[in-house]
């Protein structure tokens, strides 16, 4: 057997080349045993990451991963299988496994596989790529960590953090029963940096972070400095009474609060025409209409403040260029009115009389205003400045009421000025309530929301890619239920 040329996989930035990937796809296509629809995905990722803690680098890693996914639909049954090996034996093994499963489970529907293979036809190739991200060396990373830890050390604080350069390519090939073939190739990068700076006695903590596809847009020195600054200004927090406060939410806190609206399947402005009773659990539906046996969505109804517009444009260079079926421009909320929800092709044909679909995606842009955070503070008689929220969990899906905690910087504002650092709170709030209580909006900024590769096979990069741009908000009557001890 001929040795496969794996130079691409074992080179400095070890992602498989497009040629290597296509050879694998072609091989799989050639050895198909059945007449049916097939989808092959070959993805290859490389990452270089450096963790640090207690002012020293604690681990520096280089990781590469390969994933070959075979989906097939034969005689109405569906099967799939995954391997990370690309020798012929493994490729044949994974293909046969998927084929056998699909033949066996013709009557046993899988929940993990989309109901239909993506349509043939036009699918633009997606590229969100930055050479600068991929070309960063580990020695450059070390310099950043040196800088970040020195800043903390000078102030006798402890810095912990993470920087990562990440690259990923995905090639997908679709073959339908008539042997028509379509191929999609995507490549993306991501640079991320985050730092947590703590007082050695655990009396203060500050955080800053950013994830973008282009390293040129991630100012790591500024992130390191901001985390130190946040820690210094949060020293010796005082306990104040929980209750309802006017809050100024920094962009990161806004993203933390509103993203659950778009992330979880249950609360996403989700599937139009979904099953009975989903209205009971979804804030974007009004009720179940028995006369048409369908949930009635809130499309066209004002659900939040009229200054709120949340959208995604796949051609927005700041969000990263995307492609694939169902990823066209969408406005989820337009001037406070719910205008966009996801739906599949079946719904489109049956209910909307159109051939299309709207898929979920993780990137979004929220329109803002022009009030600076300083101006918001100056105009606040009594309130709280919130850096970040974490550990959010939805406790009531109908209203999206969530519980979670504040962390890494919370300050009391009195008479237009920051007066003191405050102990963290547990919050109890719904993004829908908050977006109905907006007082002022600031200038939108990108936040830290690194993509996570789904544990299941990545089908399209856009489901993983997340570039989130949101404004800071001043919100009235934000609900803090109890003081917590964590700093």
């Amino acid at each position, binding site marked *: *057997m*001929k*040795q*496969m040329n*794996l130079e691409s996989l*074992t080179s400095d930035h070890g992602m498989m080349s497009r040629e290597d990937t296509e050879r694998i796809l072609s*091989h799989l296509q050639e050895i198909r045993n059945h007449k049916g629809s097939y989808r092959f995905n070959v993805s290859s990722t490389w990452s270089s*990451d*450096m963790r640090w*803690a*207690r002012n020293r*680098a*604690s*681990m*520096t*890693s*280089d*990781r*590469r*991963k*390969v994933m070959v*996914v075979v989906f097939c639909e034969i005689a109405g049954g569906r099967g799939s*299988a*995954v391997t*990370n*090996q690309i020798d*012929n*034996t*493994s*490729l*044949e*093994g994974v293909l*046969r*496994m998927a084929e056998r499963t699909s033949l066996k489970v013709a009557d*046993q*529907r899988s*929940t993990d596989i989309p109901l239909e293979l993506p349509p043939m036809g036009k699918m633009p190739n997606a590229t969100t790529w930055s050479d600068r991200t991929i070309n960063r060396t*580990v020695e450059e*990373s*070390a310099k950043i960590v*040196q800088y970040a830890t020195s800043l903390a050390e000078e102030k006798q604080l*402890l810095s912990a953090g*993470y920087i990562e350069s990440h690259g990923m390519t995905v090639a997908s090939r679709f073959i339908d029963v008539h042997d028509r073939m379509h191929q999609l190739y995507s490549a993306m990068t991501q640079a991320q940096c985050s730092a*947590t700076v*703590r007082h050695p006695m*655990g009396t203060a903590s500050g955080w800053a972070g950013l994830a973008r596809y282009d390293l040129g847009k991630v100012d790591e020195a500024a992130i390191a400095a901001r985390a130190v600054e946040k820690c210094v200004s949060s020293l010796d927090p005082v306990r104040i009474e929980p209750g309802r406060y006017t809050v100024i939410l920094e962009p990161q806190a806004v993203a933390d609060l509103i993203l659950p609206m778009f992330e979880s399947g249950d609360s996403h402005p989700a599937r139009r025409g979904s099953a009975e009773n989903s209205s009971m659990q979804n804030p974007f539906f009004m009720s179940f209409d028995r006369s048409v046996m369908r949930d009635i969505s809130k499309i066209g109804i004002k659900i939040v403040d009229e200054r709120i517009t949340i959208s995604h444009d796949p051609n927005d260079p700041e969000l990263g260029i995307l492609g694939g079926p169902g990823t066209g421009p969408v406005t989820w909320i337009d001037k406070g009115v719910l205008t966009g929800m996801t739906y599949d092709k079946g719904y489109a044909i049956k209910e909307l009389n159109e051939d299309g679909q709207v898929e979920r995606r993780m990137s979004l842009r929220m329109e803002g205003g022009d009030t600076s955070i300083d101006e918001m503070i100056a105009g606040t008689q009594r309130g709280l400045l919130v850096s970040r929220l*974490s*550990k959010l969990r939805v406790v009531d899906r109908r209203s999206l009421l969530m*519980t*979670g*905690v504040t*962390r890494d910087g919370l300050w009391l504002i009195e008479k237009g000025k920051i007066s003191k650092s405050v102990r963290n709170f547990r919050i*109890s*709030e719904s993004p829908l309530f908050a977006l109905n209580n907006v007082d002022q909006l600031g200038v939108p900024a990108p936040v830290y929301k690194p993509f996570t590769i789904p544990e299941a096979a990545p089908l399209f990069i856009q489901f993983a890619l997340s570039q989130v741009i949101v404004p800071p908000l001043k919100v009235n009557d934000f609900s*803090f*239920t*109890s003081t917590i*001890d*964590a*700093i």
Partner: protein
Amino acid sequence: MSFSRRTFVQAGATLAACTAIPGQVMASANRRQDAASEIQDPAIKAIADAGLDVARSSGATYADARLDHLYEFQTRGTPSESMSLGIRVLVDGYWGFASSPIWSKDEAARLAAAAIRNARANTSGKARYTELAPVATNEQQLTGHWSTPIIDDPFEMSEEEIADYFGAVSIYMMNLGNNIPPGAEPFALEPNGLGGKFLKQDKLFVSTIGHHITQRIYQTTGDFPFKLKYKGMQAMVSLDTTTTAGAGFEYIRGQPIREQIRQLVEETKEDMSLPHVPVDVGRYETVLDANTVTSLLSETIGVATELDRALGYEANAGGTSYVVDPLEMIGTLKIGSPEFTVTANRSEALGAATVKWDDEGITPKNFTLVKDGVLNDMQTDREGATVLKDVYSRQQKTVQSYGCSFAPDSGFEPLTHSANLHLKPSSASDSFDSLVGKVEKGIAFKRGGADMDHQQISGLLYGQAFEVKNGTRIARIGGAAIIFRTPELWSSVTSIGGEASAKRIGLRTSKGQPERGAFHSVTGAPVVLKETTVIDILRKA
């Protein structure tokens, strides 16, 4: 399952041309697996050694190489198979790591060189002092093979046999409501995605100390969720007897699942028959069932006593701990009442974290985390154990890793993850119901869990809440939750159930950047808490 019959070494070392279709048609993919001994093949060790040679000659003071072959299978899911190789080196106090899916000597050498470069990137800067706890160096501890003891290998069984098992239980559930005696209240069960999840992993660990360890790890999980419709109401419930465990399919098949379902249906019907009342916020004597206790222990003791978190290594990721100064707090920090003792092990039968060697080649120890209510120790790896040197010399204990090092596969460097935990049960033989029976006025929680903060100190406990009056659960409470501080919660324990009332639950915790998870088993009995603060989670401030 293995997709194909082949030797590991061929698969990794010779990556064949994709254009050349192999001559033989594979009769493959019939779920037969390679013999258990393959990971012990010297040719595989040779791959790892090739990496260690480069690490050694490039100045690593310590290096280890891990290879693993991971098979995962889930009923109605996508089966997957992956192989990885990871090399970790220590150079002048700094760690470097590199991993890839290619099993070959050349690749091992390349990874070792990359790991060395990664470590060296930092060595010209500030000095980092890294000491690793000693490893006992007798032959028995450094070499050997071990496998999770199982009877039925899910990867040897046919897919149909596994599917049929769950299919039959589904049909049993659906039929359960069909034979109701005349006059009895009707009910119906709707199975909601029954199935199993199975993992098999062959692992090799080789180090510059002289380790040559191979292990085969199994994990099995059974999911039996169903909807119970009764008296115009419905409830979603699931068995908690088949959570993730270190076992094969016998773990599920060996249990009286149908009887457990019948019991759960009866219990749920009784609960559903209770009237619904709103939350009356206040302070109450509280009973927690075993399930709730295990979930709380995992977070408030398991996660919080991972030494790396306490030291701040997870400050930017999984979080820190209320044990802010382990050197001072071991032996002094009061976490619970005198009845509250928690031990840790990675050796118990069925334990989801049970192994013979951890991912640093250490045979895990059995140890006590909380003794009579006082913090007694932390969960460590080799680097962490040396941080506690002063504590151990004070206590006249050996400085040694407890063996808590774990990585889900060789693509990740190992981190400290929680071992299996045990709450010491009471010698009295109380059950959840008999503990409730002793409460005059209070609240009880079943199947609860907790949202913790990033220091594992303040939490919000929620679950199925019941009002308790004169020793009986008299009503269900909607939206009740408890806000608590970890040390106060466990300090208010007044009684613990007996051994028979304890449950072992497999739970997952996560940490790290990039993030990864690990399962451990937690065994706990129901408890009574003297007083807790009950709030209405659905009401805002």
